[in-house]
């Protein structure tokens, strides 16, 4: 009996926590951006404006759920679901504490890669099925950007894998007992951070959206809860990348005094705040700059990191 209830409770708990994080990130992002722009941000609804997120959700639910007549209906509806589900699936392998985690996969990292690669389909199909030129351009950019950044996203984490000698996230966290991998793998961390921003289509690299050029990019035609799914998917994506950075480079749940899940939460919060700061501070590069930066700078850096880490590992035996 316990074998059935415990996983169910874990799955339910993780889902509830993640969804509430995705919701409250709307509020957090607006407040933090306001903080860095000398404003207050939403501070009217509830204490500190915390209920603003719920007001936003109610508003999104009230919107007309419009499927354009020219869109490819089935794919149009499927795309946001793909996007949301793939991000959510990646959390399956994340260990939140020594004994809290949905599944203990010995190829957890590979599963994460697989899921984030599938996530591209959500964006690309959304851009394709919308049957509008801005959406298509957004989808086009998304496929190019996300596929090319996917390449060195994988390579940047191979250093961590070499050091920990495992694809199992639990083992990787345990291996950071003496020193967090953000120190020996500082290059890997940098590359993974950039790749993570590109993967989640966050602001410096939000070319698939690029609201200044492409209306709203791949989700121009989306409204109501389909749009909200993209939105939640993006926020969950930020959370996922932050969780991954915390797990792979910042020692996951490791830390003194406080309980393990709280440590992970603190690290994730810092990472998310950094993501929001990036959005507040950096301009969006041109499309060709993004591509050449990815292939000509980030990929060689990732390879160099992999090479040096492997050499050191071999030399030390």
């Amino acid at each position, binding site marked *: 009996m316990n074998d059935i209830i415990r996983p169910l409770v874990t799955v339910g708990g993780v889902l509830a926590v993640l969804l509430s994080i995705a919701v409250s990130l709307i509020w957090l992002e607006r407040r933090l951006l306001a903080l860095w722009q*000398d404003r207050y941000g939403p501070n009217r609804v509830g204490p500190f404006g915390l209920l603003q997120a719920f007001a936003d959700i109610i508003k999104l639910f009230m919107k007309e759920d419009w499927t354009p007549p020219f869109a490819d209906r089935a794919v149009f509806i499927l795309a946001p679901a793909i996007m949301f589900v793939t991000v959510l699936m990646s959390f399956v392998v994340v260990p939140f504490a020594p004994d809290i985690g949905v599944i203990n996969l010995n190829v957890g990292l590979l599963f994460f890669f697989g899921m984030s690669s599938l996530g591209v389909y959500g964006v690309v199909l959304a851009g394709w099925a919308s049957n509008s030129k801005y959406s298509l351009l957004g989808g086009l950019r998304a496929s190019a950007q996300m596929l090319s950044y996917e390449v060195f996203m994988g390579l940047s984490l191979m250093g961590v894998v070499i050091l920990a000698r495992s694809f199992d996230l639990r083992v990787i966290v345990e291996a950071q007992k003496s020193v967090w991998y953000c120190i020996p793998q500082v290059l890997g961390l940098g590359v993974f951070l950039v790749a993570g921003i590109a993967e989640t289509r966050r602001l410096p690299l939000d070319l698939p959206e690029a609201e200044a050029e492409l209306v709203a990019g791949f989700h121009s035609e989306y409204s109501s809860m389909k749009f909200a799914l993209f939105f939640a998917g993006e926020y969950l994506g930020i959370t996922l990348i932050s969780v991954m950075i915390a797990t792979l480079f910042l020692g996951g749940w490791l830390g003194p005094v406080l309980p393990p899940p709280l440590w992970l939460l603190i690290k994730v919060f810092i990472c998310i705040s950094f993501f929001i*700061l*990036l959005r507040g501070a950096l301009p969006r590069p041109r499309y060709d700059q993004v591509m050449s930066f990815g292939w000509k700078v980030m990929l060689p850096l990732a390879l160099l990191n992999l090479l040096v880490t492997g050499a050191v590992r071999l030399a030390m035996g």
Partner: protein
Amino acid sequence: MFSLVRALWDVFLHAFRRRVTVQYPEQKPYLPPRWRGRIILSRLDGEERCVACYLCAAVCPVACISLQATEDETGRRYPLFFRINFSRCIFCGFCEEACPTYAIQLTPDFEMGEYDRQNMVYEKSDLLIAGPGKYPDYNFYRVAGLAIGGKEKGGAENEEPPVDLRGLLP
């Protein structure tokens, strides 16, 4: 690359700056005395100043003022009704400039939100205030050369008595 880091740091430091937002309903902004807001009609010594000359209605660029002149038994003009449609008003202040009696004045008040559009139309009873507003001492009839109840011709301030055209004396 360094400029990116520099930008991040500079933006981060903005967290400790003073906020520029005015927390409006709790914290009222400063409105100068000559702020052009809600329009009022002033009274002097309990009497309406307005003489219903239509100058404000004529000068109003959006034609939001409408009134009808009438007279009391002493020949003093006053508006039968005076109506300002604030959903049209652009608060340009031309009416105040045009007014010869300082009756119509703009006040530092902008909080006029309404749920019903019809409520934006202010009648004379809504516009009239008890006091003289910004110009407490000016009384049009006291300086105008017009005969009015209680004041004969030539009885105004700085006014000579009327010249007797048939007399020989200078």
